[in-house]
């Protein structure tokens, strides 16, 4: 049998990926200070890094909203309709 792939089980690899991810996050924000802004439609388009914050807030907002709705109202046991 073929050997299993266990790349993501090694702590060293995970640490490397983490560092790479943080570098990527940093790059997309830093680059934003240097790009031309010809196509913006909104005032916040002029703020470097705005969309990074937007993404983070949107993500948290969606999770919190959905989980609250789910816990308080929508989520039922799997045999709810049986």
């Amino acid at each position, binding site marked *: 049998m073929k050997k299993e792939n266990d790349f993501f089980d090694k702590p060293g690899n995970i640490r490397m990926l983490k560092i790479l991810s943080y570098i990527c996050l940093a790059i997309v924000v830093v680059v934003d200070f240097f790009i031309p802004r010809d196509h913006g439609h909104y005032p916040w388009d002029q703020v470097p890094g705005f969309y990074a914050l937007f993404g983070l807030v949107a993500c948290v907002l969606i*999770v919190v909203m959905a989980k609250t709705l789910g816990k308080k109202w929508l989520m039922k046991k799997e045999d709810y309709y049986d």
Partner: protein
Amino acid sequence: MINWMPPGLIFILGAFLIPLLKGRMQQAYLLLLPVLAGFILLNMPEGAGYVMNFLGYELVLARVDKLSMIFGYVFVIAAFIGFTYSIHLKEYGQHIAASLYIGSSLGVVFAGDFITLFIFWEIMAISSTYLIWSRKTKASQDAGFRYLLVHIAGGLSLLIGIIINVAETGSTAFNLMELSGLASYLILIGFLLNAAVPPFSAWLSDAYPEATITGAVFLSAFTTKTAVYVLIRGFAGTEILIWMGAIMAFYGVIFAVLANDIRRLLAYHIISQVGYMVAGVGIGTALALNGSSAHAFAHILYKGLLFMGAGAVLHMTGKSKLTELGGLYKTMPITLTLYMIGGLSISAFPLFSGFVSKSMIVTAAAENHLTIIWLILSVSSAGTFLHTGLKLPWFTFFGKDSGIRAKEPPINMLIAMGIAAFLCTLIGIYPDALYNLLPFDATYAPYTAEHIVWTLQILLFTGLGFFLLLKQLGGEPYISMDTDWFYRKGARAFMWFINNPMVRLSSKVNNVVFDIIPSSLIWAVKNPYAVMRIASDTVLLQLSGPDKRTEIQQRIKKEKDMYPGTINIYRPVGLTVLLITLFLMAYLLVYYLKSG
């Protein structure tokens, strides 16, 4: 001289040959059908073809223009991919259903009139139901029935709208309509139901996850996208669709958070993505309509790919719940890679198809100063990546190791996924391949520095949010209520109403009509004279004063005890003559009154 056949009919007529072929021949034939249809598509002349006369109405089976062509192309590609993915199936019933389903979808897209459109619309509903039932589980039987009933209701709304429209205008032609009058509203409701616009959306997230593994791949491509097509054709620029679409995009994202079944999660993201297209139809500018068409095209490919990936997991593990999966990257790395191409495409990463299609609609919203719509669509974009690109693959392929060591799926499944992944990437890298097919006149350049950087910021920081909230985001073994609650619980309430109060009422009616009334009649005719005496005494009892009451009561008791007793008729002849005279007088009176 018409030397071609409408491409839909290739699949519909071709379906009947499928059971006659066996083994390799059947497999080759299934792949030949879309190739043949594609060849016909490439050679169809523009304009109205296959015009026929039916009971005095004109049927147009092939309205060929750029709008119908772009949907035609992607449907044929989806057919080829879908058949490749399902070619290993020995059960030809599903192949026939899929072929009819594809053919009728093409029929809707090329229909130039309402009658043709409606006929193909209904074939779609019925043939697609078979793809759900073929799973042969209790859940799929039930979900299939609900799916069929909902679609029949939507089809009826459409049909009534069409009939009113034909009666009012005298024409069956299907063109851009104005939303005014009952007919247009009913037609729009029929269309919106197939587009899965809330509250008419629950059929999709209810039924698609219960369909067969291969059936869901077909389902994800055709029904909602034919609906997007007819909305563009019939209701472009209808303002209410902007809001419906935006709400829909967000709605799908919210419900996807709560989904535990991987195919249900993907189904909710169909609703979300079609929301973008519906919003684009509502905005109605050339850029927005191009965006809806392009996004439909891209969506069919990446959503098919995602459903194929989820289907591969289900096929190899027998499981589809996030809570039961995990760690599959060890043994299914190819499936994971191909799935991720779909995930990056739907999330609109640069170099993948969603980036060049979705952004057209979002940009159109901004250009038309629809700031709130723009905001909703942008937030939903983050949610799309969060679930389809992060949550689903993380908890399926990584996360907690479930101990499952499933192999890669059969080679035909991998090839089908490979074709879809290739096209998703091709469109991302070379968008003109898609843009050249677009029906309306608008230019759009997706690859500007700020668009790339801002998109990456939104997506990567959504990713950061995902890992910060990782503990909250695992699947949970629950289901969530959707608008199907109304008919699932409603049906139960209805059945309770029938089984309890209605049954009690009916047994009471039964008792009175068939028991109490006949038996008292029988009792009464034993001695009608005595009955009259009892009746008159009872009336007397009510009228008389307290001093006589006991006496009358005693008399009634005696009469009842003696009943029926001997029939004692006083002056029988006199009574008979009196009755006859009375009847004759009544007769005379009626006669005079009537003639007078």
